[in-house]
């Protein structure tokens, strides 16, 4: 079943200063799965996500994305095939909602028409209205911001979507709505999702598999 694995993490060692965070850690992520990385704070779950994305470089060990060993040379290329949703508000404040959404599409040099069409298609998926597009992030609510963040992460049809506690800063009602939304998106897109969370309920609700750290 080797070809069904999209992310392989092999024998990773990582520490902050003298503190060991990950020790000889290995894990596989299946294509199309929704893996929830579950753990206490300090357990290294966000670190693992950043290592997969190449934002952190492990002291030893390999990350293999779709049979391609992650290295400085192919880092940007690989990241462009991943979506990334961060905790809290990470929208670019000087760009409009629309410009935020097409950020990755622009990095990939897609045409204006393609971008417009793509966003128009995605808007109903996250339940956002068109009149929001020309607003700036500070003009919309926290829940709306996270929805925009999700579109930003999936608009360029990435192979993998990484999410780092995307709902932690939201009130419970908004969180519940967004959980349903993300689950729905995963089912529709059939993309691999990796989500870091500290909530067992959230992991059980969303994950097709759970990685406990």
């Amino acid at each position: 079943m080797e070809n069904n694995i999209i992310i392989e993490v092999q024998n990773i060692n990582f520490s902050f200063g003298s503190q060991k965070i990950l020790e000889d850690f290995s894990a596989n992520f299946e294509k199309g799965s929704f893996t929830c990385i579950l753990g206490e704070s300090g357990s290294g779950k966000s670190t693992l996500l950043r290592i997969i994305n190449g934002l952190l470089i492990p002291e030893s060990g390999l990350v293999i994305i779709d049979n391609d060993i992650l290295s400085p040379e192919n880092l940007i290329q690989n990241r462009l095939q991943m979506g990334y949703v961060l905790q809290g508000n990470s929208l670019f404040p000087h760009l409009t909602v629309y410009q935020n959404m097409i950020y990755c599409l622009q990095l990939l040099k897609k045409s204006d028409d393609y971008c417009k069409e793509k966003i128009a298609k995605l808007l109903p998926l996250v339940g956002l209205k068109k009149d929001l597009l020309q607003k700036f992030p500070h003009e919309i609510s926290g829940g709306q911001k996270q929805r925009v963040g999700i579109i930003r992460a999936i608009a360029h049809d990435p192979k993998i979507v990484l999410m780092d506690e995307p709902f932690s800063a939201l009130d419970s009602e908004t969180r519940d709505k967004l959980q349903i939304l993300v689950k729905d998106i995963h089912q529709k897109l059939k993309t691999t999702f990796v989500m870091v969370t500290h909530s067992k309920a959230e992991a059980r609700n969303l994950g097709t598999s759970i990685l406990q750290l």
Partner: protein
Amino acid sequence: MFGLLIPLVGIGLQNALIVLIIYGLLPIVRSTYSGLKEVPAQLVEAAEGLGSTPAQVFKNIYFPLALPSILSGLRITVVMIVALTGLAALIGAGGLGQAIFRGLNTMNTGLIVTGSVGISLFAILGDQWIGQFEKDESLLRVISKNASTAQRNRIIFPSILVLIAAILALIFLNPLSSKNSETITVASKPTSEQFILGEIISQTIENNTDLKVVRKFGIGGGTTNIHPALISRDLDAYVEYTGTAWLNVLKKDLPENNFIDFAELNKTYEDQFQLKWLGLLGFNNTYGLAISKENANAQKIETYSDLALKSSQFTFGAEFDFFERSDAFPGLKKLYPFNFIKLEEMDINLRYQAFEQGKIEAVDVFTTDAQIKNLNLKVLKDDKNYFPSYEAGIVIREEILKKYPEIELLLTNLKGKISTEKMQELNYEVEIQKKSPADVAKDFLKNLNLKDGK
């Protein structure tokens, strides 16, 4: 800072530009640095995580988010630089600052106000211009390609105006053009007297030759900055005083009798500096002691020795320096047995006011001061030759004389034509009657020609 650069790049516009650029960089660099440092790490992580290259992270995230801080630094810089540009006049770079300094030196309030208002206006305009960038985050919006028409116009129109103004200024000033070979650069120190003398030299050349004269008047620091600029050929001619040349340029001690040998001075200048003194103009601008003419007549006081005898009837006022410098009052007291009622120390500019108000009856003067005529003072005779003489003469580069021999004759004609009283009168016309140095010089030359004509 302007002074420091003079030995390196000389006086003038280039020096001024270099200094202004260095000064201006500092706040911009600092605000750019702090602006970049304060970009939230989370946004940088988001941009990196989404696959931006380092260059894209800088262009898309760091630069736009640091922009407000960069702009506020730029705004400070613009105002600061405009203000500093006023000081550039001190090193002969011209500009509105020249009006201020000329006004200060010749006590012409109108010029001071004109210069100050002009500079303030430039500062306000510059501030407003950058302010347009900041207002409503206009520049940030334009750079992020999400500006409204109003925001775009706010950037475009003022900037076009500034650009046009900058191009016009560049064409007009052309700081890179080398000095025209057919010009003579005349300098002056920052005093009314020097402005007048500078004009007299300039107009004499202009009226009688086809040469163009560039006026670099009111150079701060006087001899300290003008002399090196003659050596480096940035300046061509100015009026110097024998005492200053002897003590400050040649750095020689005064001879026993305080008599400066002009022939020796001139020879040293020719040998060491290839500079020539075109004779002496006829007046001596040295320290002097003065009392009112009525007092002088009533008590028959003609000399310092006379004054010393009657000094117990006088209160004497002078600037702090005069009491401090060993070559001024302390030495003077040793030679003449002064025993004034009281010694009043005051700011140099307040002496005459104090005299006018009757607070002091004897005062130290420079012998060509306009106030001597204005207040009807009698400058007493230094009968034991205590003060060295500061006789004025035109100093010019020999190279210029070789190139334009006609100038030597023209300027030598001024030899002995300005007595100490005449110089007082010319200073009086500028400082008290508020005539411009150019007009005063013009009238003087007209009268001189009439006399010569007869």
